[in-house]
């Protein structure tokens, strides 16, 4: 009995790993459309909001993103990938900040400062087709270090 207890406790001592996953946040939930996201940044949870919550993208859609910087950056690149059942259907990358032409007010911010982006986003389509989409949004600095990261789930009915 003693041997067994020791063996079991030894097993748990060595194999109980620390699992750190940020909570799933709901951006909006309507009968025909649901947006959820989870931060995939190992260091922090981030804030994302999308308005209005509508399948129709004819109106301008406003996106807000807030996060605390854990690294300095001079260059900032946003990378967006859209998956339908792990099949990549859309990929887009955009340079947000360059040292010589800081377009956004958060460009050039340093570690410890808050980055807050608020602005309209054009999707290039009029309506979101039916389906479940996984969107991964990542922000990289010039050293390819992940500044911010969110996995967004979009369900359109």
């Amino acid at each position, binding site marked *: 009995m*003693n*041997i067994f207890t*020791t*063996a079991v*406790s*030894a097993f748990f*001592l*060595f194999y109980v790993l620390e699992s750190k996953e940020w909570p799933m946040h709901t951006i909006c939930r309507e009968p025909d459309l649901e947006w959820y996201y989870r931060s995939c940044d190992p*260091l922090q949870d981030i804030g994302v909001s999308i308005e209005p919550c509508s399948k129709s993208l004819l109106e301008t859609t*406003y996106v807000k993103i807030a996060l*605390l910087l*854990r690294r300095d950056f001079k260059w900032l690149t946003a990378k967006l990938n859209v998956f339908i059942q792990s099949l990549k259907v859309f990929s887009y990358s955009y340079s947000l900040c360059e040292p*010589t*032409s*800081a*377009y*956004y*007010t958060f460009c050039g911010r*340093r*570690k*410890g*400062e*808050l980055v807050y982006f*608020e*602005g*309209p986003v054009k999707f290039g389509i009029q309506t979101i087709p039916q389906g479940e989409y996984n969107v991964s949004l990542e922000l990289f600095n010039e050293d390819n270090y992940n500044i911010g990261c969110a996995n967004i789930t979009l369900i359109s009915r």
Partner: protein
Amino acid sequence: MAGSDALFFLLSSMPVLSWPLFVAGNQRWCTEVIANIKYQCMDQNLSRIPAEIPSTTQQLDLSFNPLLILTPKYFAKFPSLKVLDLTRCSIDVIEDDSFGGLRNLTVLILTGNPLRYLGDRAFYGLLSLRKLSAVDMNLSSLYDLPIENLLVLRELNLRRNNIKSLKIPEFFRNLTSLQILDLHSNKISHIVIEDLNIFKEVNMPNLTIILSNNVINHIEPGTFKDIHIHKLSLRNSFQSNSIMRTCLHGLVGLQVNKLELGSFYSIKPEIKFEDELLDGLCQVEFQEVILICFKDLSNEKHTLFDCLSNASSIRIVNFDLVKLSAIPEFARLSYLELKNCLTVDVSLGKLASWRTLKTLKVTNCFHNTIFISKFYGQVQHVSLDLTHNQMIVNECCSNENLGTSYLRYLNLSFNSGIKITSNFEGLDELLSLDFQYTKIITRIGQIPTFLTLDKLLYLDLSYTSTHFFIQCAFCGLESLQVLKISGNSFERNILSQVFRNLTDLKVLDISNCKIEGMSSSAFSDLKKLQELTISHNKLTVLDPTAYAPLLSLSILDFSCNQLSFFPENALKSLPRLLVNLDISQNPFDCSCTHLSFLQWTQKQKSVLQNIQHMTCFSPSHLNSVKVMNVTISSCYTRFNLTPLAVSVGVLLPAALTMFLVYKCYVQQYFRLVLSRFCMDSREEEDKYDAFVIFSSKDEEWVMTELVEKLERGLPPFRLCLHFRDFIPGIPIATNIIQEGFLKSRKAIVIISDHFMESRWCGFEFELAQSWQFLEGNAGIIVIVLEKVNKSQLRQTLGLHKYLRRNTYLEWKDSRLDQHIFWMRLRKALMDGKPWGARERESL
């Protein structure tokens, strides 16, 4: 006991032994970036500096730890510190002399600490501090910072505080080295005449003042009079066009090298190009102006740029500009950059043809770039950058097409197409030519085009859809050092000659050119080549003679080809200076036939790049196995030792375990069961000399012969007899074990026909055998009382066998035999009898 003990220890010691390691692992809070120099302890929930940091540390990152209060001499243990990062350490109190002893500290970052108290002498002793970052720290005035002793301070970063006034304190007089005063995102709304008096007395020509993202409503005219600084940044500082216009008039008398005006991206842009907006700049002396993020009101503009006429450099970034009906005479304009134009008026093209212009950059202006037809720059060292414009250039490229003979740098990359109509006549000065990702139509690759460009150092024709037909495609490029032609194609037979005479070439990129084989003389003139990229081609074999002339080569990229192995002579002849060799993503053959190649890869681990993408393609059982993981040793022996090793590895511990369990079980468990009955009888052990196992039907012989002779003889033996010594009220089995075996030294078994018939006798005999086995000594004395039926003997389990193997006593009728019988029996019973008892009993 030994076996089970060992097992138990093994298992129980695992956590015991590893626990200290486990704890120690947790206690290493910081990452050692450079041993004894640089430590990273970010976000470890530390409330003080961990003891593991050595005193020699020069760079320490303690950000995102709850340090709360800095007390005097807090960092005195680290006198060598040069960079200290205390970002978001929840510090609300910094006491006097907190940084005492940090004479070498050059960078101090205090970003995001909610400061309530800052001692007047908090920064004393920081004799070398060059950069102080006090971003987002609730500071309400420049007077809040006691930095008068930071004599070599260069950068003071005070972004995102609550500073309401630009009143520069008197002690800034001491900060003569100050280069950056960053007041981005503060609450400065009014700038009055006495605010900058210090800078009128002390000249600071290298100072940059950033006032962006403040809501400035008024700048009193005269505030900046006689002030000479390097740069003034006013982005998103004015809420409307009218405020901006009046505030710019307030800059009267300022002398500044760079002036940055504009806004940031916002949903509702406030500042729009209109006449008179920039009129205030007429009274400002400046060299460079940067106008960034301006919208347009679409009304006619006649005088917009009139006050920029003395600028030598103009950058206009992220803007709309239409209906520009007039531009002024630019006296000194030498640099013009238009970047990210959304809409732009054709007349801005006149700027491009300004005679003094040395550098013209028009990038990402693809809606309206046809207007740049000719570039009239008539000064030396001209450069022209027209990238990312979706342009189609119909005539290229001669001095007549471009309007200048002094062009040194021409970049037409990332456009739609270029029609090469001339052979770069009159562009002898050209040093750099970049056409990458722009489709080239005609000439290049078909006729010798570059014959006049003997000064050209850099040529990039990557992904220009060029097919090189002729061997003399690069003739004339005598000085060329960098040639990038990836993503094109070659006529099959020209590769042996096409790079001839490029004797100064240092970098060559011919990746993704559908090359199937490299001619042995292709690189024969490239003695100075340092970097060669042949990745993403279709090379199937490697001809070592082709690479032998590359004596200076240090970087070689063969990735993504069809190479299955490198022949032995290639491995030997690969240039010895190689620092980087990439052979990843090739379909390698990892069979033993290429043993020397496999051995070589493992030896060259430090040189090889992207090792994780070096995988085997064949043989099939090694498909997708990493080349570095292939076990070469298996090639040395004929039969595979692995199954044997595995079976030995598995069976040996299993057998050992079985043995231990067996020993443990039989010896200890059985003993435990037995001892359950005799927990209290240990002191009564050896109460009897022998336990007599016999059938009740032989009781008469036992009583008359055995008891008579042994108990009343000399020395007397004490016998255990069931009818006499068993305790009533206890189960027979318990009595047999407890009274019989455990309290007796020996067992006497009386065998007769009656014995055979009795179940209890069989049980007792079997128990006796087990008992003897466990005790490990001869404890059973068998007496055969009468001739027993052989067949019956066989039926009693073990007895027949026992009699065949062991000596036993036979009871006979003759007196002599009986005498010998008693002698032998007494001798057997004497064995193991304690001496004391023997003597006591014999007395």
